[in-house]
């Protein structure tokens, strides 16, 4: 069992939890993820390691409530425990040798982009963070990002926070203004990462994306998380989750992520109904 030390709502649908997991904290690197199960009969879901503290022995996760399991997870409080918490899984993000990087985070993907930006900043790289949300109520990690960025570009779809527009608009402007990046790191919804790579391809800027396919074990034994990368099949849990954005087949990845949509919607409704009953 893995104790929840801290819980904090970052916005109405996004929660941050600090988990007591000293062995994972000792080894974790930005870009890696954990797999958790909320209860004994629960499903396994992957979540990226948003932060870690080697001294305190803690690992931070940030999740958006999108379905039954994240709903259940969000009903746990400080002092409760997770049934299973395994990691660190996947390969760490490669940041070595990078001098100037645009880190792009979209929505809850910012929780994954932040530790990468932080590591780059600690390495002395120049970090331009472009972060996008649908509106100001959904903003997370603003202070954290500002603290590790040389330039911070907030964007929102409706203009209620930062500039109105998409992260790709901001990136385009920066490139047009003559900013030259060694690399762009884009983390967020698949459709966002797809459009970022379409843009950076035109400018021939190397782009790394963090993929989020469906996973079960997360250790390379099932291939449920497979993707087409450069025409070859790769397992995101062991070969990734970071890949060269120019090589990823995003359309296939989007289709594969929709495989259990009906089941998921049904399970979510069931979970919500369950909680409604408990409240009454």
């Amino acid at each position, binding site marked *: 069992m893995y104790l929840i030390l801290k819980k904090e709502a970052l916005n109405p649908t996004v929660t941050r939890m600090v988990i007591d997991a000293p*062995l*994972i904290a000792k*080894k974790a690197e930005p870009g890696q993820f954990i797999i958790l*199960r909320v209860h004994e*009969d*629960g*499903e*396994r879901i992957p979540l990226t390691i948003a932060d870690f503290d080697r001294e305190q022995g803690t690992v931070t996760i940030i999740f958006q409530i999108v379905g*039954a*399991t994240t709903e259940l997870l969000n009903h746990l409080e400080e002092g409760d425990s997770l*049934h*299973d*918490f*395994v*990691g*660190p*899984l996947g390969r760490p993000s490669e940041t070595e040798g990078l001098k100037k990087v645009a880190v792009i985070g979209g929505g809850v993907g910012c929780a994954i982009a932040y530790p990468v930006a932080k590591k780059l900043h600690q390495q002395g790289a120049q970090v331009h963070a472009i972060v996008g949300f649908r509106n100001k109520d959904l903003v997370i990690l603003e202070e954290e990002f500002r603290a590790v960025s040389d330039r911070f570009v907030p964007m929102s779809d409706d203009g209620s926070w930062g500039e109105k527009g998409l992260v790709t608009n901001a990136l385009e402007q920066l490139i047009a203004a003559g900013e030259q990046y060694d690399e762009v790191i884009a983390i967020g919804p698949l459709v966002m990462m797809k459009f970022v790579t379409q843009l950076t391809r035109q400018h021939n800027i190397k782009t790394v994306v963090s993929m989020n396919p469906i996973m*079960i*074990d997360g*250790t*390379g*034994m*099932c*291939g*449920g998380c*497979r*993707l*087409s990368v450069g025409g070859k*099949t790769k397992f995101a849990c*062991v070969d990734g989750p970071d890949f060269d954005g120019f090589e990823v087949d995003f359309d*296939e990845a989007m*289709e*594969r992520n*929709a*495989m*259990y949509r009906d*089941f*998921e919607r049904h*399970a979510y409704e069931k979970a919500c109904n369950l909680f409604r009953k408990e409240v009454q």
Partner: protein
Amino acid sequence: MPNMSLKKNEMPSQAPEVRNKNFLEVALGYTQEQALDEAKRCLNCKNKPCVSGCPVNIHIPDFIQKVAQGDFEGAYQVITQSSSLPAVCGRVCPQESQCEQKCVRGIKGEPVAIGRLERFVADWHNAHTCEAPQRPAPNGHKVAVVGSGPAGLTCAGDLAKKGYEVTVFEALHTAGGVLVYGIPEFRLPKAIVQKEIDGLKALGVKVETNMVIGRVLSVDELLEQGFEAVFIGSGAGLPRFMNIPGENLKGVYSANEFLTRVNLMKAYLPGSDTPIQHARRVAVVGGGNVAMDAARCAKRLGAEEVFIVYRRSEKELPARAEEVEHAKEEGIVFHLLNNPTKILGDDQGNVTGMECVRMELGEPDASGRRRPVEVPGSEFVLEVDSVIMAIGTSPNPLIKSTTQGLETQKWGGIVVEEATGLTSRERVYAGGDAVTGAATVILAMGAGKTAAQAIHKALSGEES
């Protein structure tokens, strides 16, 4: 007076049309009367060829004599001198090519039903004995076991019985390896696996789940932490795909994924949080036990038609004859001498069919098996909405890539000294599928046993 019947006692089982709709165990096991009667078929012969056919050399006639005398607990004690998992092995061992193949009674008639008797004895013990086993006095030595499948559990059990402090590290959330994620409930009830693992815990074996060795701790760190030896029993869990077009369509599973969802995550239960596709028509590619398990699970999930698609003929099917028989009885349709060339999908990315080509058997290849050759122009489409690839697995590269100086074969198998299981690294042993590639439960157990003996010798200087 021995029972000279030429036939084994039949084992009661669920009728095919009933069992292919549930996940309850197919074979129901002997009654006491059937077991007593079957035990009397054993001639207790002097040279005991059956024992040499058992990879862990259970004293077979000894335990069967105890059964014949009605001393079932005594029989259990005989078996557990050699085997840590009798309830499992009695169910899943291919006895026809091991102990029972060597049985003298098999020369004229059917061999003694050794597997069924072993199963009976283990089940009887589990049902009647609640006493915890005697925990041996600790000998002060610590050993780490990586992986809680049959190889790791056997190695751990054997060492614990000698007083070693053993910790088993398992990557998944439940111990048991292929016994829990691979072999379905209807062949091996998970409660039985759990009971065997609880028995090991009672002996003092510590089991730590959620520990991916190679990520959270390396083999070297285990040695630094004071474990005097490490046994690697991490199996062969990396699935192979065919690399044909359409393999990433929705509805294409590796058998590992499909079986993990069904067995480990219990996706067959209506209330499970883990989803699974309930397909209408399913093609399972491959002819091994894993293919049979996947096909029979798919049928139980409600598929109208399930096909086994295999490129060789019936004679070459690697699955146990009994499993093939069971699959056929349950309505699985065999498309033999057929090979997939392409998986077809709709504009949503869902599987709609599988293009296959007919094969014929050509000249024997290096392995001695006749090589299947495509029949030109024989392409046809099998209409299916799900495809399960069960064409084999190879060892996961994680341990190899994080353990300096660990020698492996080109295909990933860990290189070991056959007699001891010692790897190219001092104090590091390995066995089971991690060494051989996908094989059988009992071979993995044999390897675990060999390594336990070698570890004991290395750490204590004593022969077992």
